[in-house]
C-alpha cells in the first residue's frame, strides 16, 4: 500500500493516463472541497490555534455558543418562513407563465420571455438599490413583503425558463390524447403536463427555495437589520464573532441545500440546470 505514496512508483503502477486523471481529481477536490472540509473540521474544534493544522481540542463548544444566541436561532426560523413564502408565491406566478410561453402562440411572446432575463442580466446590487429607493417611498423597507419581493426577483428567470423548457418537451399529442378521452383542460394540465414537466419544475423550485435561503446582499440592503435571515447574520458572524462560530453557522446554512439535493438528486443533472440559462 505504501508504495503508492511515492509519486514515481504510483505513476508506473497505474499507468500514464490514470496518473494524470488522479492528479486532476486531486486538484479538483483540493480546490473545490478542501475549503468546505476544513470548515467542517473547524466547526468541531474547541481549540484551533496556529500553527496546528488540526484542532488541538475537539468538542461542541461553538455549537453550544451558536444555539445559545437567541438572535441566531430566530434568524433560522425567519429564513425558513421567508423561503417557503417566496417559493409558493413564485410558483403561483411563474408556472402558469412558463406553461403559456411553452404552449401558446401570441405576438409579444418572445418579449415576455426576454423580460425575465432582466432579473439576471443586470447586477443584482444595482437592481436592489433601485428598488430600495422605491421601497423607501412605499414604506416597504425592513418589511417581510419587501424581502420576499427581493427574493422572488432573484429566481424568477429560472422559475419561468426552466419549467417552460420542460413543458416544451411534453408532446402536445399526449395532452390531446387526454383531452380526447374526455379530460378537461385543467385536469389535463394537472394529470398530464405537470407530472411530465416535473423534473424541470423540481429543479426550478429547488433553485428558488435555496436561492431564498442563501440570499444575502438584498436582504442586508432592504431588511435594514429588522428582517434578519441566516445569511445576514452570517455576515455579522464572519466579520464580528470570535473563533469558530462562523464554521458552525456555515454548516447550518448548508444543511437545507444538502437535504434538498439528496431528496431531488434524480432530477439534478447538467441538462436540467443548464436549461435555466437558455431561452431556446
Amino acid at each position, binding site marked *: 500500500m505504501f508504495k503508492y505514496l511515492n509519486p514515481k512508483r504510483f505513476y508506473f503502477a497505474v499507468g500514464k493516463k490514470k496518473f494524470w486523471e488522479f492528479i486532476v481529481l486531486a486538484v479538483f477536490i483540493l480546490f473545490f472541497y478542501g475549503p468546505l472540509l476544513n470548515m467542517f473540521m473547524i466547526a468541531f474544534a474547541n481549540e484551533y490555534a496556529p500553527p496546528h493544522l488540526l484542532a488541538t481540542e475537539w468538542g461542541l463548544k461553538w455549537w453550544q455558543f451558536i444555539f445559545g444566541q437567541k438572535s441566531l436561532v430566530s434568524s433560522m426560523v425567519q429564513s425558513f418562513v421567508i423561503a417557503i413564502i417566496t417559493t409558493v408565491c413564485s410558483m403561483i406566478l411563474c408556472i402558469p407563465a412558463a406553461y403559456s410561453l411553452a404552449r401558446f402562440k401570441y405576438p409579444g411572446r418572445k418579449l415576455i420571455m426576454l423580460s425575465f432575463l432582466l432579473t439576471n*442580466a443586470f447586477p443584482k446590487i444595482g437592481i436592489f*438599490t433601485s428598488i430600495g429607493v422605491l421601497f423607501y417611498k412605499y414604506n416597504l423597507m425592513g418589511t417581510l413583503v419587501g424581502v420576499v419581493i427581493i427574493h422572488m426577483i432573484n429566481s424568477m428567470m429560472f422559475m419561468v425558463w426552466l419549467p417552460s423548457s420542460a413543458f416544451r418537451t411534453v408532446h402536445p399529442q399526449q395532452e390531446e390524447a387526454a383531452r380526447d378521452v374526455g379530460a378537461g383542460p385543467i385536469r389535463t394540465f394537472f394529470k398530464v403536463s405537470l407530472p411530465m414537466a416535473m423534473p424541470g419544475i423540481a429543479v426550478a423550485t429547488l433553485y428558488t427555495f435555496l436561492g431564498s435561503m442563501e440570499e444575502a446582499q438584498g436582504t442586508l440592503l432592504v431588511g435594514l437589520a429588522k428582517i434578519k435571515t441566516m445569511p445576514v447574520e452570517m455576515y455579522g458572524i464572519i466579520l464580528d464573532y470570535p473563533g469558530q462560530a462562523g464554521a458552525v453557522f456555515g454548516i447550518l446554512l448548508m444543511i437545507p441545500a444538502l437535504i434538498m439535493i439528496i431528496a431531488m438528486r434524480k432530477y439534478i443533472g447538467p441538462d436540467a440546470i443548464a436549461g435555466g440559462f437558455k431561452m431556446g
Partner: protein
Amino acid sequence: MNKAKERNRMLIGYALALPAFLTVMLTVAYPIVSNVIMSFQDEGTGAFTLDNYKYFFTTPAQLKNIGFTLYIVVMTVVLAVVIAYLLALYLRFIKSPISKAIGTLYLLPRFIPGLVAVYAMITIIRDSGVINRISLLFGYDFKPALMYHASGMIMMNLWFNIPFAALMITAGLGAIPDSVIESARDVGASKLRVFRSIILPLSVKDVVIAGTFVFMSNVGSFTTPYLMGGNSPKMLAIALFDQFNKYLNYNRAAALSVIMFLICSVSAGVYIYTNLKENEWE
C-alpha cells in the same frame, strides 16, 4: 369559428403569462427606469445634471474602482471559461470512474450558499489559514497574501464560476453525437482537426452563454468583495453599497448602478444575440 377559438387561446396565453410579466415590470423594469431618471437629477433640487456621472469618471478613487472591477471580471471570465472548457472536454470524452466522480462532484458547489463558500475559503487563505499552517510544518512562515487582494477574489470567483461554466459547456458538448466524431475519425481526421472543425464550432454557443453569464454575475458580485476585499480599490458593488447605505446619496448610487448596468448590457446583448440567432422551436 376557428378564428374565435384561436383568439380565445391567445387570450388564455396572455392571461397566464401576465401576472409574472407584470411582476417583473413592476419590481425590476420600473425601478430601473426610475433609477435612470434619478441618476440625471441633482440631489437637492431634482434639476437635470450630469454631476452624478462626472463624479465617478473624474474622482481618481472611483475611476480606480471601475478599472479594478473590470480587471477582476475579465480575468475571472477568461480563466473560468478556459479551465471549464478543458474540464468539460474531459468529462465528455473520457469515460472512467474518475471522470464520472468529478461529473457528480462538480454539481455541488452551485448549491453551496455563496457566503459559506467564501467563509470556507477564508479559513484556507487568511494569514493564519491552512496554507500558512502547512508552510509552518515545513519550517517556513509563508503568508499567501490572498486576503484583501485581487488574486484572492479571482480565486474565489473561479470557485464559483468554473463549475457553472463547465456545466453549461458540458450540456452543450453532450449534444454532439458520438457518431459525428467517430465518422470524422474514420475518414482520417486527426484529434486536433476534429476538435477544431467539429467540437469547437458546435460548442461555441454554450461557451458564449457561459462567458456572458459569468461576466454579468461578477460585475455586481457583492459577497466576495464584501468579505474578502480590501478598502481601496473596491469592487463597484461595494462602492455602490457605500453610496446607498453609508453616504445615503441616492442620486450618485443611481448613477453608479446605471454605469454597472451599461457594463453588463454589453454582455447581455451578446447573450441575447447568440440565443436568438438559432431558435428553432418557434
